[in-house]
């Protein structure tokens, strides 16, 4: 880290996440989450474990406010998500960085453009955007690829771009949904190391995964889901 932006990234304030008796039913009758309660402490790194269909994605969607719970309450920091109106959702999402298994990077744009767009929508000056983009690209180790088109990057590099984009607005909370699902073991380890590094900066990080290998020996707390119910926390 070589410029002033680094100091700001160092000061991420991770919020607490609290799920209280959250239930999510879909219109087709499927109950994705059944009375789930857990807490992630401010600045904690936690795994959300479970097989396909266990309710991980539903839980992530609730945290991203793509969906609203049928019952129960979710609190992120001081914000009770049920209090946020639809028009307020974009502003909430700016406080949450998200990383997906399929990267969700705009392939026709350059690495710089993919990251800068998050700051442009806030009307930030170009100079500040340039500095911040350089800082986050340096953090994830692909500053040299700044001007390359995303379509020319490898899977590991694309996920780094996604992480860079997730942290460019300096959110306190990072949610990663199967971030290593499309990566080889080496890149998976690197992405997990990056997420841990961001956690060390102060962010609360919640990683949903079904890969036991990623979780083992990580030393992080695991919230396990099965058929929409919390199984255990260790």
């Amino acid at each position: 880290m070589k410029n002033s932006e680094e100091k700001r990234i160092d000061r991420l304030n991770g919020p607490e996440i609290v799920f209280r008796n959250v239930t999510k039913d879909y219109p087709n009758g499927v109950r994705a989450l059944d009375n789930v309660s857990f807490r992630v402490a401010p600045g904690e790194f936690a795994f959300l474990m479970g097989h396909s269909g266990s309710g991980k994605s539903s839980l992530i969607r609730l945290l991203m406010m793509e969906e609203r719970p049928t019952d129960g309450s979710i609190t992120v920091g001081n914000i009770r998500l049920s209090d946020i109106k639809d028009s307020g959702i974009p502003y909430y999402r700016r406080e949450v960085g998200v990383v997906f298994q399929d990267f969700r990077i705009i392939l026709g744009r350059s690495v710089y453009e993919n990251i800068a767009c998050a700051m442009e929508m806030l009307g930030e000056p170009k100079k500040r955007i340039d500095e911040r983009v350089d800082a986050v690209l340096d953090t994830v180790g692909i500053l040299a690829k700044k001007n390359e088109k995303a379509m020319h990057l490898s899977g590991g590099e694309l996920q780094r771009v996604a992480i860079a984009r997730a942290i460019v607005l300096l959110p306190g909370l990072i949610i990663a949904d199967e971030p290593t699902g499309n990566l080889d073991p080496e890149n998976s380890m690197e992405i997990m190391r990056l997420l841990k590094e961001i956690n060390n900066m102060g962010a609360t990080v919640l990683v949903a995964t079904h890969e036991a290998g990623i979780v083992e020996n990580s030393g992080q707390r695991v919230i396990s889901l099965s058929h929409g119910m919390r199984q255990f926390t260790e």
Partner: protein
Amino acid sequence: MKFLRLAYYELRQGFRNILRNLFMVFASVIVVFSVLLISGLMIEAGITLGSVIRQFGDRAEVQINLSYLVSDEEAMEYFEVIKSDSRVKDAQFISKEANLDRIISYFKGDEELFEKYRESERLHFASIEVQLNEYTDGTGFLEEVKGLDGVDSVKDIVGTIEKMQLMRFWVNIGTIIAVVFMTMLSILLIFNTVKLTILARKNEIQIMKYIGATDLYIAVPFVIEGVFTGIVGSVLAFFALSGIYSAVYKGVYDTAVSANIVPLTFKETGAGWIFLAFLIFGIVTGFVASVWASKKHMKV
């Protein structure tokens, strides 16, 4: 400053959309262009017809030929009655002798052929030339005059003007229908263009939503694309219409068909106003279509 920077980022994205979607934008521009050109030509036709009617109306003249049995003295009495009519702007009395001289003078060079007719009683009739206040006064006035004893014939252009008025009415109706129909067509085409852009960028829109972009921020570049399409189409249509009108006017003028009857609408209405009207049409059409498409298809 923040607003200006946002505007700049939005504009840049809007023009990127246009470049990516150039073919469809071009197709929509052609539609807006055609709509405005056809509508413009029909409106021009209506205005021109109206101007012709107005000019004929200004010369709403009626010639009343009295019977040869009516003497000049009796004819003067008719003249006084007609002149005092409230619908009459001006009237001129032409005596029997003056009338015959005028008829003979139409045959310049062969006047001697008509000398023998000077003795013909039937060619000795007085006339009254009447200018009406408005051609619309004509119908009732003519009925009354024709009903007078001693009136032989009445020549007028009231009937012609009425036919032209009817024609103008239908041209105006046709113009309104065409404008409404073609406006809907252009809105649909721009809607479709913007819709295709949105669908092609569905993934991108979803990503923007995840990182906290508002619907308005995402929609503005699409609206810029729609408005741009409308503006380009309307500007092209204005210049094409102006060119066509100039060519038509020149053709009419060169054939010496009463050049002063055909109005130079671009001058009369003011080219600036026509340009402004086209521009507003283009902007509104593009705006409505793109906002509609954004509202309908941006829920990803």
